[in-house]
């Protein structure tokens, strides 16, 4: 198999975990260190870590123009690295940045993209991806056909990011290249409200009748904040007036499909399952072992949510602090 090149996403000097997942995957497929490309301003310090996840060489594009993300700037960096490396395959994490970068790069090279794959393997030299279709009811196997470069975007949180002891990667600075910005990011303003829309969220923590009363939302909120999640709710608690309808998940509320859905004190009536059944990982916290939510849950804890929810929040915070 020819060489792999992995696009590393960083914002505010932090590398996205999804990119490390893509990097680890490339090392596994290639059977050894691969090339990576990193764009930004003052990002040299990040290179060292990339070695542990599989980068043998890191192409670094460092300039003022690249301080903030721009489509053309970052695709330009990937392009420049590709010209030097001549990879056979390019992997990009399927984040919102990756979903912008990959198709632009593919268009420049007249290649196809295996978008948002949940599995990727090599069949000889051919990269074969597997992706969910029809809301997860089927999987499609896809390849890039006769593309000169095979490109894939990998779904976050699917592939493991494996750190190994490794030599520090070789750094190759990319020649400054001209970015002719048709659009320029002037500044980024974070939204005032911290509340994440439940329909957009990647992680959701939901509370149901089991929380006993609106006075116990802080407990659920604590776990929600620890996970950086959006707050969801079952119809029962919305009907009871414990929380606003915009949080309702289910048949007559929002239909969601996050990567992680934590259901606290929700029995899982079909009206609720209809709204979240396609979530990738479902964690059920309920005291009733017979609750139907356990039938769809990936992980479940049978127990008093007034113990399990705070414990889980503590564990999440501890894991994140590591």
């Amino acid at each position: 198999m020819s060489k792999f090149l992995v696009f590393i996403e960083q914002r505010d000097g932090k590398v996205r975990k999804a990119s490390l997942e893509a990097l680890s995957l490339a090392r596994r497929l290639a059977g050894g260190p691969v090339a990576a490309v990193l764009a930004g301003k003052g990002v040299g310090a990040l290179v060292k870590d990339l070695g542990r996840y599989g980068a043998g060489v890191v192409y670094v594009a460092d300039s003022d123009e690249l301080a903030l993300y721009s489509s053309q700037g970052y695709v330009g960096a990937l392009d420049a690295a590709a010209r030097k490396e001549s990879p056979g395959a390019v992997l990009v994490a399927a984040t919102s940045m990756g979903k912008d970068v990959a198709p632009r790069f593919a268009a420049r090279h007249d290649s196809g993209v295996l978008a948002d794959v949940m599995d990727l393997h090599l069949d000889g030299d051919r990269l074969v991806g597997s992706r969910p279709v029809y809301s997860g009811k089927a999987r499609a196997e896809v390849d890039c056909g006769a593309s000169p470069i095979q490109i894939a975007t990998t779904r976050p949180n699917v592939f493991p990011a494996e750190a190994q002891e490794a030599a520090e990667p070789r750094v190759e600075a990319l020649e400054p290249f001209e970015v002719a910005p048709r659009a320029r990011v002037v500044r980024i303003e974070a939204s005032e409200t911290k509340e994440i829309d439940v329909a957009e969220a990647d992680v959701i923590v939901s509370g149901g009748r089991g929380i006993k009363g609106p006075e116990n939302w802080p407990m659920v909120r604590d776990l929600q904040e620890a996970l950086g999640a959006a707050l969801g709710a079952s119809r029962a608690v919305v009907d009871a007036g414990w929380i606003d309808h915009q949080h309702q998940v289910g048949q007559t509320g929002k239909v969601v499909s996050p990567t992680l859905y934590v259901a606290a004190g929700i029995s899982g009536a079909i009206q609720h399952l209809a709204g979240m059944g396609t979530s990738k990982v479902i964690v059920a916290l309920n005291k009733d072992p017979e609750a139907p939510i356990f039938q769809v849950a990936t992980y479940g804890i049978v127990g008093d949510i007034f113990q399990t929810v705070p414990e889980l929040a503590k564990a999440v915070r501890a894991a994140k602090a590591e």
Partner: protein
Amino acid sequence: MTDSIPTDRVIAGLLGRVVFGALVTIAILAFVYSVARRIRVLLAGAPENRFDRIPLRIRRTIEYAFAQKRMFRDLYAGIFHILIFGGFVVLVVRSLSLVVEGLIPGFVLLPGAAGNTYTLVKDVFEVLVLVGVAMAVFRRAFARPPRLDLTLDAWFILFLIALLMATDLVADGARSVLNPTAFDLTWSPAVAAVSRAFRGTAPATLQAIYESCWWIHLADLLFFANYLPYSKHFHILASVPNIFLMKLEPMGRLGTPDLENSERFGVSRVEDLSWKSMLDGYTCTECGRCRVVCPTALTGKPLDPRVFIATLRDAVYDATPEILAAQSGRGGDSPPAPRKDLIGGWVTEDTIWACTTCGYCTSACPVFIIPAVDKIIEMRRHLVLEKAEFPKEMQTAFRGMETNGNPWGMAASSRADWAKDLPVMTMAEAEGSPVDVLFWVGCAGSYEDRAKKVSRALVDLLTSAGVRFAILGTEETCNGDSARRMGNEYLFQILAQQNVETMNGYGIKKIVTNCPHCFNVIKNEYPPFGGRYEVLHGTELVSSLIAEGRIRLENRIDESITFHDPCYLGRYNDVYDAPRQILEAIPGLRLQELARSKQNGLCCGAGGGRMWMEEKIGTRINQTRMQEIAEAKTDSVGVSCPFCMVMIGNAREELGVETKPFDVLELARRSMVERSVER
């Protein structure tokens, strides 16, 4: 001889008769004109065949228009109504003869014995009508049932009726004293009583009384006839025809539009209403029976069937001049002023989406108006098929039915998973071996947690009874009830055709299902799609198996229970006894009826696709019903519909009520003594 007949004194000479004749002619012409206008508007309505099966229509007319079967559900109102109605039938002859008397001096309606008999009947009925009016007045003044709107119009019409009777009696009474030889009072006891009261009164006074009463009577009569077409009392003329023209199809079958060849879908303008729908509006006399157990009217929703039908009538009246102008080719060059649409103009969208299609109003109306359901579905069709405007949460259900064949959108491939560990064959597996009955499981029975347990209970009951049955498995798909009643006729027809094709492919003859919605649709709405089957509800099949001794209920359940009737089982299909027979067959179980039960049962709130919508206006229908159930103070409540189970179960949690809901079949399963079953 002639000058001794006082009528000559009333209508003085030829000139007087000419003037009177002219008055009568004008009144008749005005009446004909008013009624003709109303009828011509009907001609502009959408077509609908209501002239089939004439003998049946005649039978129904006798039963419901003349014997007024539905009126006696409210005994007091039924009695005074039939008194007044009977009076009208008898006295219309008397009134016409009085008019003729005015024109032709000395006119006698019927000679001899026939005349005497009529005189007696007339006399009695005039008194009975007065009694009826007095009862009506008492009710309006003192009893004041909440279903009535106490309008001035109603008081006015009661006054006109009483005046007609009183003036006739008084006129005859005065005349009989003035001219005793012309009257044989043995045949008119009421007049005789008036006559006795007038004894000793001066002839001039009597003459004045007689003349004024005669004129008042005739004026009242002619005015009354011309007042009717402009008031809710058009009822008097329209009800008999409206009953004759009633919907004869099953109550649970909605109209099936030809979607391939239609240019417009549903109802949004007055002209989109069928002529019969317009006649419904003419017929309504605003008695309010339709609102008594209406779930939306009871819980503060904008839909009140009595108001709804009157609003449609007002819309028809409002559009009348324009429709008539268009009909006669007038209307001229200037385009007509923009008229309010029914939807948005006369009726709000919230009103249209509120209906649970429980059918109470339809089954309560004594004159067979369909106050809400069919008309509201027509309006929903317009909103969904033409405008794609509907509560957004309905989209989830529509998409689920479209892509996965169930409103929750659960995977179609897992439809038969509930039966994985049960000895249940699919029709495909049973190919070749004989099957007595197809068990139609339904979406809830296949996917919803509690309903799945009920499906298992039915499997156990049938297996134990030795019934050879099979399911369609993943070949089954949603029956389409919710889609149709939410106005998505297109989706319904696709689902219906698909299911009929599957079942006809297996040559299915007999079906059992425990979902009243599936039951109603397959039984009543599939025949127009070529699906004709014998369809039984689970409780019907199980109760007959109990009666045959094939299922033995011997385990005691020492509890008190009440029963909540599902609309689509009870009101729509008259299955009231089967679930009760099962409950009564369980040893120890004590059945106690709810205050509102059977045809007066209150809806749980889930019908008409409301299961898939948010209930944001007013109080909760399911909680209202649960409160009624709790008042029965029984240990549990029997239900026979998976939607009722969800609604009642939710309300129970929300209100913290003790009464536990059980499906009747779950209880039968618990009480059943299992025979050795070969598995």
